[in-house]
């Protein structure tokens, strides 16, 4: 018997794998929908459990109901956490790609060019005409974050914020060229 939270766990396991991948695996549209649906179902259960009590529910007087309510509440929060962490893991990845200068076309093309689906979760629901591994919302996010980063970079145009994070080596190659031209100046040497 699958229990509340099990589907959320699948999302998080997917996120765990995503962390270790260079590319972004397909967005789990169906799984996300199911987990969100579970939250709404639980919320309805809570409402119907509370209905007979009007506004005056006393947990100490009806401990069994209180316990069920607590379980439902925790399950909703658990699902919310799983959904947020799943999406956050992916936006982290997307932001990294934006920092590295990939654009939306690169990202969208990953799935067709890449190793294909990495697990069995992308059922027929994912097979819209475009085979992007990003959800439409994620595509929007990439655009918006790209704009945000560009705006921030604009304050620091001279230092090239997306430049290398490796400390600069000296300009030795240039120097060697210079040596040929500049070896003349030995007047004081």
């Amino acid at each position, binding site marked *: *018997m699958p*229990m509340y939270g099990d589907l959320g*766990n699948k999302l998080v396991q997917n996120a765990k794998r995503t962390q270790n991948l260079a590319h972004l695996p397909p967005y789990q549209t169906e799984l996300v929908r199911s987990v969100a649906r579970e939250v709404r179902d639980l919320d309805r259960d809570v409402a119907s459990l509370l209905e007979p009590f009007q506004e005056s529910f006393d947990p100490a007087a009806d401990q*069994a109901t209180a*316990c*069920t309510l*607590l*379980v439902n509440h925790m*399950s909703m929060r658990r699902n919310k*956490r799983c959904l947020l962490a799943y999406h956050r893991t992916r936006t982290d990845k997307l932001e990294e790609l934006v920092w590295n200068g990939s654009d939306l076309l690169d990202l969208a093309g990953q799935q067709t060019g890449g190793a294909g689906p990495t697990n069995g979760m992308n059922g027929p629901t994912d097979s819209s005409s475009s085979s992007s591994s990003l959800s439409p919302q994620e595509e929007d996010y990439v655009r918006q974050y790209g704009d945000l980063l560009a705006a921030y970079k604009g304050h620091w145009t001279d230092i090239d914020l997306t430049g290398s994070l490796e400390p600069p080596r000296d300009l030795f190659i240039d120097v060697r060229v210079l040596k040929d031209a500049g070896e003349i100046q030995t007047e004081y040497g």
Partner: protein
Amino acid sequence: MSYYDIDSILTDAEKIPCTFQLDVPELGYLDNSPGQTLKAGARVALPLWLAELLAITSTGSSDDQNKSYVAFDLPHALRNDVVQALKAEPLAVPLRDQSAHFYSLATHMMDLSEEPELSATLRKTFVRRAAEIALHARKLGGGTGKGDEGGSNLGVGGAGEEFLRGLDEWERRLFRKAHDGTRAGKEWMEKIKKN
């Protein structure tokens, strides 16, 4: 304990043996019997994210203020024979077989109930195994002495491989850090000679 942290969320999914302290008609599904009442005394393995709050929330019962919805035991991964084995020979136990989030799970449990002896044993275990992890990481990362690996760069050998396979998530991260540190040091040394 971070809300968005994937490992923390996965740790919270670990199952804890719990005993219900009251009848709950709606929760039969937790014990594979949907539609039936979950009876007081029923033993159910609940994920930590659920067990934790059920165990610390008071029922508000007038006859027993301390009574909570469930009582819990230490999870299977932390049972006594595992702890005894770790005490005897910390390197011989594949922690990952107990739980991929062994230490993380343990810290949760120790927050829930005081386990001073467990805490002391696990700290010793962790430090002892960390030293071993560093040793393997140096070998794989290409440490200072080149001669002592004996052939293959992956010269961990059977026992070593077995040990590394048994690392839990904390230890894997530690291994990666040690390995990266050694490798970056080596790369720097090689680079400086070229430039």
